[in-house]
């Protein structure tokens, strides 16, 4: 038997060089660019309000982020003797974290784009070398995974350039640095995706990704665990304390990290050390060229083998003897399943509503993306809130305690708004081609909406109410204040769920099966923007309406007025869209 390397080389030799085909990559780029351009045009033609909303949101984010970064950097830079070090470390740390996020994003997007994509399946039987298909998909995945990074980072770099009084050429050169940088996580992500696809099926991949993410969180918790610092140390040995703190961020300055080359290059250029910056630019360029050319010339056969493997294998988990025995037993015992059992305990819920609840719960549970993202978002918030206990000794000023408790309310609601827009809003649309099942059932569509609202709200309340109570206990707030904030978060949770369900029914997209595409339409964008505005207004009203003022208790008409405004706003933002949605589905044609 010939060695594996020879077999691989022979297989690769069977694909003619892409150069012999008349610009197929160019054809693919052109067709997809045309598609994207038409999507943009369609957006404009569909709704001017949507275009305006998106425009305002983008400009608003950029302006607000720039302002915050600018003030933050100015503030940090004013620490005598420490400002420059702090800013330098923050830049290294930020790019290291963004590098990890980009890597993860590239891995997930490349996997989906290469192996779960209808265009790929369409292209494979055409006379195109797999290398050409891989090239196009690699470019597409890189763009999809990196645009948000550029959007996030642009205001920071602008603010950094201004605070450092950088020359005009800092800004275009920074773009070049970033363009080189994003190639590296993209190549690593694509390579990992192909390798993972070759050996793991989708479910095993999802479980492995979650296990890695959970492992990283645990490592972060251990690595960043707080160390007790006494007041005396804070006053007399500031430098020692700071040194201990900065020691934890040293990993971001590991010289083989691409984020290190980017951070060092950008900072050197801002300082005018052009030779040092040029060195890091060349390092980035050489790695980008090396790995980029590997992607463009050596991945075709690997990709084709992995694509074939993805479509050819049984479940990887199913190969385990125990799993196979369990599945055989499960198939022949016709179990009710634990969702059905648990929902069976709910009193006063009719059988049809319960069936819908069980179906929605099963779909949620079996879609790892849904509970995975929920877990990550609220997991990070929980880690932050639980860590508050380490600061409670230092937090003695009622002003800061109050501020943090309202910020926690805002953070909790913003997290929830992201999830209601991403997962609750598309619920009605996702019935899509299956709408005839629930639509023709005696349950009726209005009740379908109400059941979905009840399910979404119950699930959200478990998390938001729990987090709010824990947050208040960590801040050692009195029970009266705890219940006050708990009441606010309950009202906001109900309003945000009602808004998402209502707008989802008012702006349905029954043709689309992909929830992220449903969300990116007018209704989804409107829901997100409205949710954010509602949260900002609500947190302000709840804070203003708090009976515990700085100068003693506030008069009750003031408190009642603010709460009436808060409840009225919640009614307007939540109940009204839900009511309109219910009315809309009564006469729904499908």
């Amino acid at each position, binding site marked *: 038997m010939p060695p594996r390397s020879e077999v691989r080389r022979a297989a690769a030799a*069977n*694909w*003619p060089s892409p150069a012999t*085909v*008349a610009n*197929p990559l160019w*054809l693919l780029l052109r*067709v*997809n660019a*045309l*598609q994207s351009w*038409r*999507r943009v045009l*369609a957006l404009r033609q569909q709704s001017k309000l949507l275009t305006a909303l998106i425009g305002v949101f983008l400009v608003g984010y950029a302006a607000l982020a720039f302002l915050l970064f600018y003030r933050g950097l100015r503030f940090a830079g004013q620490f005598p003797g420490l400002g420059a070090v702090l800013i330098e470390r923050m830049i290294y740390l930020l790019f290291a974290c963004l590098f990890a996020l980009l890597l993860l994003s590239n891995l997930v997007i490349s996997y989906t784009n290469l192996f779960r994509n*209808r*265009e790929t*399946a*369409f292209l*494979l*039987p*055409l*006379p*195109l*070398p797999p290398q050409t298909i891989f090239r196009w998909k690699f470019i597409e995945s890189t763009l999809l995974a990196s645009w948000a990074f550029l959007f996030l980072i642009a205001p920071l770099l602008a603010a950094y350039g201004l605070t450092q009084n950088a020359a005009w050429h800092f800004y275009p050169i920074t773009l070049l640095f970033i363009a080189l940088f994003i190639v590296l996580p993209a190549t690593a992500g694509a390579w990992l995706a192909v390798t993972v696809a070759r050996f793991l099926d989708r479910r095993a991949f999802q479980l492995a990704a979650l296990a890695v993410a959970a492992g990283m969180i645990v490592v972060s918790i251990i690595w960043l665990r707080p160390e007790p610092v006494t007041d005396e140390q804070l006053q007399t040995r500031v430098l020692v304390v700071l040194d201990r703190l900065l020691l934890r961020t040293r990993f971001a300055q590991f010289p083989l990290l691409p984020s290190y080359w980017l951070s060092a290059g950008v900072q050197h250029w801002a300082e005018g050390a052009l030779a040092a910056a040029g060195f890091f630019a060349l390092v980035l360029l050489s790695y980008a060229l090396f790995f980029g050319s590997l992607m463009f010339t050596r991945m075709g056969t690997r990709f084709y*083998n992995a*694509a*074939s493997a993805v*479509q*050819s*294998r*049984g*479940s990887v988990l*199913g*190969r385990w003897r125990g799993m196979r025995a369990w599945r055989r037993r499960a198939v022949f015992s016709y179990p009710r399943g634990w969702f059905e059992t648990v929902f069976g305990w709910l009193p006063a819920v009719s059988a049809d509503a319960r069936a819908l609840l069980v179906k929605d719960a099963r779909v949620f549970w079996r879609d790892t993306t849904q509970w995975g993202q929920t877990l990550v978002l609220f997991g990070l918030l929980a880690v932050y809130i639980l860590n508050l206990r380490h600061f409670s000794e230092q937090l003695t000023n009622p002003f800061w305690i109050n501020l943090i408790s309202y910020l926690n309310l805002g953070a909790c609601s913003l997290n929830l708004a992201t999830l209601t827009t991403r997962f609750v809003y598309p619920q009605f649309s996702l019935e899509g081609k299956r709408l005839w099942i629930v639509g023709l059932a005696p349950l009726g569509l209005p009740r379908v909406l109400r059941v979905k609202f009840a399910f979404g709200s119950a699930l959200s309340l478990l998390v938001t109410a729990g987090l709010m109570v824990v947050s208040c206990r960590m801040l050692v707030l009195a029970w009266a204040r705890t219940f006050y904030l708990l009441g606010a978060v309950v009202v906001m949770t109900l309003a945000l769920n009602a808004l998402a369900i209502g707008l989802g029914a008012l702006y349905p997209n029954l043709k689309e099966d992909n929830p992220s595409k449903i969300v990116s339409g007018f209704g989804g964008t409107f829901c997100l923007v409205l949710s954010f505005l509602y949260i900002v207004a609500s947190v302000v009203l709840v804070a203003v309406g708090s009976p515990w003022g700085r100068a003693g208790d506030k008069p009750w008409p003031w408190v009642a007025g603010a709460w009436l405004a808060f409840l009225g706003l919640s009614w307007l933002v939540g109940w009204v869209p839900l009511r309109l949605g219910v009315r809309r589905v009564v006469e729904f044609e499908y």
Partner: protein
Amino acid sequence: MIELNHLVKRFGDLVAVNDLTLHISAGEFFALLGPNAAGKTTTIKVLAGLIKPTAGTARVAGFDVQHEPLEARRRLAYVPDFPFLYDKLTPWEFLRFTGQLFRMDEARLERVARELVRRFNLEPYLAKAIEGLSHGTRQRVAIVSALLHAPEVFVLDEPMVGLDPHHARVLKDILKERSQQGMTVFVSTHQLSIAEEMADRIGIMHEGRLIALGTREELRRQSGAAGALEQTFLALTEQEANLREEHAAAK
């Protein structure tokens, strides 16, 4: 023109295609029938180069699908049951795109495309976005795009899904014409009437095996069932299922 030799395809423990050997000559209209999960679509996917066989070989127009993939694919056209089309393109743009991928010269591309568009009555839709077209119209666009480069082998998975009777007739006529001109047609379908009306030979798969192969008359004789192809098909698949059960019981 199509040669499948001892083809095996496994998905984990499941043997989707089990030692399939089948030779189809140039200009032949071949219909592959079988109950659900018989292995028809897997066979087509191997033939189209979408998946690699576990064992055995597949050749198109003399070229091994795995070892000379581009040569094989240049001679092949494949239309799945739910074809992918670029939603934001118009049918005309999509036809030009596929023609260019097959490196057709402009004049020929336009001439052939015009002719096929006329026959499939696609003129009113040529400038509209594909996303707004009905399922049947999209299916017609996919079929036209596949026929553009005059493939030597045309593989179709459930080609009549979504087509109205008029356009189903047009497709049948074109397939018959092209087949008379030398194009090999390989159709996988559950619609027995297509096989009965059009096919030169019919193959019946069951649980990954080719259990019957021959002309309409040969299959009828083999099954011992009189009447339409439906009776033949049911008799053959039932016989096979009974044999399997007996075999399993003996084990």
